């Protein structure tokens, strides 16, 4: 089939773009490792979220819980076993998968808004617990951090690590230990490339899932779950599997967050964090493969940029205007920049949902149709008319 070479082309193109991000983003000043890492990590998170939301249409408002548990798991791997990130992210993914199974098993008994509320309730419970009874595991508001090897066996594990594997191999530690991948320090561009490779892997898996029989069933669930039951399909195990897969992606992303910056706090589990990944997905394009990564990249970039702008920069920007107008514009703009970044985020959210429910990918598709139309008008007509009666709308083929 032709679609399979198209898939490979997309994968190769995607990989090339991701690996070249440090160069590609240089002109817009976004090529520093911290931002690049975030783009890759949140891209992965959004890809996974899209497997659930994009394919099945089930809107989870609790995916931040998996990010949180992934982060905590990875931190404990650093504290107890080794600073190597590989076991850490394996643990994050696996445990997040288990948690997703438990939450999904219960939440997926209901659909629609009830499902959203159930997932939200579970995530809020975990968030609240992380701040209260689970403090010995999460270190509460301070957050879980790596420490030097403890000297006194009575010292709390929160204040002193043991790292049995590293100690067994006689790894020397000087000062605050850093995360590594078999010796490669996970900071700077190395950290980014590590995340980027995992992102590409995650993209590849998502691509396979989307184009599999399993993925087709998920799309059918979104399209008409009731009918699917009468077709002999038990939709529940499909939904649970999709939920677990997307939870594992989130757990992996949570693990990667600690790989590049070894600290985990409960604020990662707050429901606004769940909202953020929803926004990334819909901004890029729900149900598309590339869209979520695009959305994640744009939002992380905008967050870094917009929140770093201050009044001075704005005043400079509007300096060509007459005084009164300049002050006015600066006043208006100050709502949206710096601390006001969330305002921009909220507005973006609304604008996308109102005007472009299909996200940017849908926008691109519409643009390309616009440019292609003059050429193809004849063929399009002859292809669609025989089967359609007048008055019947021809719904656009969804992007992807």
């Amino acid at each position, binding site marked *: 089939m032709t679609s399979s070479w198209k898939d490979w082309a997309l994968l190769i193109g995607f990989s090339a773009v991701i690996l070249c991000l440090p160069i590609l983003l240089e002109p817009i000043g976004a090529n520093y490792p911290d931002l690049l890492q975030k783009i890759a990590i949140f891209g992965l998170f959004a890809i996974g979220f899209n497997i659930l939301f994009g394919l099945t249409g089930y809107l989870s408002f609790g995916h931040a819980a998996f990010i949180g548990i992934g982060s905590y798991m990875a931190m404990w791997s650093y504290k107890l076993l080794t600073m190597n990130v590989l076991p850490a992210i394996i643990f994050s993914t696996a445990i997040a998968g288990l948690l997703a199974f438990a939450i999904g098993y219960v939440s997926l008994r209901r659909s629609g*808004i009830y499902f959203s509320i159930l997932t939200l309730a579970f995530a809020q419970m975990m968030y609240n617990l992380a701040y209260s009874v689970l403090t010995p595991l999460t270190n509460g508001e301070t957050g879980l951090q790596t420490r030097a090897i403890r000297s006194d066996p009575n010292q709390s594990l929160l204040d002193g690590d043991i790292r049995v594997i590293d100690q067994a191999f006689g790894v020397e530690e000087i000062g605050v230990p850093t995360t590594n991948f078999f010796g490669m320090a996970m900071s700077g561009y190395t950290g980014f490339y590590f995340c980027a490779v995992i992102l590409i892997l995650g993209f590849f898996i998502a691509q396979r899932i989307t184009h599999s029989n399993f993925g087709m069933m998920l799309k059918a669930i979104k399209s008409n779950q009731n009918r699917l039951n009468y077709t002999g399909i038990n939709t529940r195990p499909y939904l649970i599997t999709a939920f677990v897969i997307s939870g594992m992606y989130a757990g992996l992303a949570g693990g990667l967050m600690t790989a590049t910056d070894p600290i985990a706090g409960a604020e990662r589990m707050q429901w606004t964090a769940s909202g953020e990944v929803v926004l990334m997905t819909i901004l890029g394009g729900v149900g598309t493969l590339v869209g979520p990564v695009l959305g994640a990249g744009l939002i992380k970039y905008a967050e870094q940029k917009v929140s770093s702008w201050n009044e001075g920069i704005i005043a400079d920007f509007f300096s060509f205007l007459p005084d009164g107008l300049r002050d006015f514009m600066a006043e208006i703009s100050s709502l949206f920049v710096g601390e006001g970044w969330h305002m921009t985020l*909220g507005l973006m959210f609304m604008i996308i949902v109102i005007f472009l429910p299909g996200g940017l990918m849908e926008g691109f598709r519409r643009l390309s149709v616009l440019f292609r139309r003059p050429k193809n008008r004849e063929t399009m007509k002859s292809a669609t008319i025989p089967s359609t009666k007048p008055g019947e709308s021809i719904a656009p083929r969804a992007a992807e």
Partner: protein
Amino acid sequence: MDALFLQVLNGLDKGGAYALIALGLTLVFGTLGVVNFAHGALFMFGAFCAVSLERIFSTSYVTISETEKDFLGNPLKVDVPYIQEWFGSGTANFLQDYSVPLSILLAIVVMGFVGVVMERGLIKHFYKRPHADQILVTFGLAIVLAEIVRHYYGANPIPQQAPEIVAGAANVGNWFGLGDNVVYPWWRLVYFVFSLIVIGAVFAFLQFTTFGMVVRAGMQDRETVGLLGINIEKRFTIVFALAAIVAGVAGAMYTPIYPPDYNLGMEFLVLSFVVVVVGGMGSLGGAVLAGFLLGILQSFASMNEVKSILPALDQVIIYLVAVIILLTLPRGLLGRQGVMED
């Protein structure tokens, strides 16, 4: 016994707030069919109506006192609120003291306006869109509203005072012959009674007016009412504004109990959604019942005796109840069949 009674009391004011928010939420859902994630922000807006009124009343100019001197013997600079200048100090003190209850009036006007603008400007375009879109767009709106408040009022909570006359605590235990251990802040009692009055007013409005009858019919069967040739659009706007006003006054009156900040709406939104779902989507009685029930349960869970057995139960009780209710009674406590079902 005393302790249990006190916990019930403790749950009442919070339960009242939950019930008022949930009432509006479920009213909007039941009639307009819209899931409004910005409803918590309306509660927060109401709270800031109280803050604003207090600020207006204390807006002052600086003058030099003719009689008083500071400790160095220089003329003393004093702030004179404009309302003192205009209405005399007696009225001014009264107004300042009663700024929170008076802010109800401001909240009604402001929230009514906000409600109409919101419904006409945004919500009405989402009647036919999927619930996911409604959730997403109102979620975005909630962020925007919160940020507007943060921009103008800062991020810190702003405490408000209850009127002098209801400062302090009532010895409720004495009333019921339970001894002196059960004392309870007066304002919280006021809030509880206030929430009952508002709930009663809303129910009376829906029960005894023609308008209310149409709205109730609409909640039963939206399509049929639309077919009757009734101008449903205009009524939708009014219902939405009503829900906004209820949330707003609930927020304004809540300020002495819980100092509002811009994030107040988000905190209450999640909880009140849970309340609505527990009560049953689209059921007004269910929302009120679940509101008080969850408020009281939450205060029970925060008792030390309970905490020693099940630590942190108070943190999760509401969500836990929601999960159990949703799994055992899919339609919530008083939910009707066919709401939000395929």
